[in-house]
């Protein structure tokens, strides 16, 4: 078993792991070779060690997991790789916006109080999203059974909406007369929908892939 032969088995192993995109056991890797060329288990184990070394300083590494070996992108490059999978920002649900609006205008407010006004349950996801975005925070707990958290808006919330303080939020009397604003927003959303419609799918040829 000379070096050249080992390097060949190593290259085939690497090729197979990269093509499979899932873990392969030592046996599965050995099965790729015809009977007369099939490396012994020990040889294969040695090749895996060689392959592991050969991945040093590269973008990926050999990992051994329960079902076998796999090649995996190195974790230290995760933050760059993650940008590949960045999705377009979605829109917040109406439920989330209503919850946020109630926290802004009625703070400090508990989830139960929000639910009382909205007439529907507020999902934990909504609260978590608002907390993660750091637009709301828990400022205490109401002294009633269950000791529910009280939510209030944050400085980040004010910054995002370009406000110096909550008193700069539009007064509720203006909120009453929102018909026009509503029409405007619907118009914007319409424009957005048209932009994403499948008719325009020729346009992606012009953008870079």
């Amino acid at each position, binding site marked *: 078993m000379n070096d050249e032969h080992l390097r060949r088995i190593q290259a085939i192993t690497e090729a197979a792991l990269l093509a499979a995109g899932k873990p392969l056991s030592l046996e599965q890797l050995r099965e790729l070779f015809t009977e007369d060329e099939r490396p012994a288990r020990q040889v294969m184990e040695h090749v895996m060690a060689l392959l592991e070394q050969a991945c040093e300083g590269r973008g990926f590494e050999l990992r051994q997991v329960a079902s076998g070996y796999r090649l995996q992108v190195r*974790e230290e490059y995760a933050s760059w790789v993650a940008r590949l999978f960045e999705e377009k920002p979605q829109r917040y649900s*109406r439920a989330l*916006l209503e919850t*946020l*609006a*109630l926290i802004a*205008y009625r703070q400090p407010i508990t989830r139960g109080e929000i639910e009382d006004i*909205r007439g529907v349950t507020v999902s934990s996801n909504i609260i978590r999203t608002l907390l993660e975005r750091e637009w709301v925070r828990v400022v205490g707990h109401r*002294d009633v059974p269950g000791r529910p958290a009280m939510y209030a808006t944050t400085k980040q919330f004010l910054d995002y909406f370009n406000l110096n303080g909550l008193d700069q939020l539009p007064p509720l009397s203006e909120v009453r007369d929102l018909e026009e604003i509503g029409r405007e927003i619907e118009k914007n959303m319409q424009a957005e929908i048209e932009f994403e419609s499948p008719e325009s799918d020729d346009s992606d040829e012009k953008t870079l892939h």
Partner: protein
Amino acid sequence: MTDDTTVTADVAEDVQASEQSPLALVSGKPVVDLPKDLYIPPDALAVFLEAFEGPLDLLLYLIRRQNMDILDIDVSEITRQYMDYIDVVESMRFELAAEYLVMAATLAEIKSRMLLPRQASEDEEELDPRAELIRRLQQYERFKKAAEDIDQMPRLERDNFVASASLPKLPSSQPHPDVDMKELLLALRGVLQRADLFTSHQVEREKLSTRERMSAILSVLQDDRFVSFESLFTPEEGKLGVVVTFLATLELVKEQLIEVVQAEVLGPIHVRARSTG
């Protein structure tokens, strides 16, 4: 499968054909011969339609394989035969059979024109009636070859495999949606209308600055400890700020969110969140 390869009478004449493996099986019998002319036996039609990509393809084959002279065909016989099996193939791939029929008609036309005496007055430029057909055959042949070339080209999933590695744990990089203040107001309008809160003036009663200050005070009182009442005030804010803080404190007391303790008359006042402790 049968070993009997002597199903056609032509075998003796066509030694070459008997040496080659059968083209396909028709009703269990191997078909060795390809058609001598444009007539395809109805029972073999499906096979031949598979083997040839249409009449041009078949013609290309015949020209070489059978040394067929496209002028030397019995037009009336071929036409009759075509008409016969159109009935047979109606249920299978009629549209393909029709194309062979069109080809037969084209050939018939060529032949009839060739039979007519050429008129001397006619333009010398006029092409041999076979020229158009030959041009089409040549053109078709180029793309037939191109298709074979494409089939030979290395391609994914057969000769090439994309290399991919599994992913490590990726940081959540979901970008945040944008929100317009108008959207927020619209949402608020919706929920307030549903809750019918516009009629009661409950919501509007409190100044938002007071609400904000209530939140601020509560966040100062996060721990279970007393804070001096005075420390809640920021003199730099001026009179208005002090008033807002005071109103906020009163509101918090009213809502039973904080408790105010004064150990002795005129002694220091302390506040603490009721919920903690």
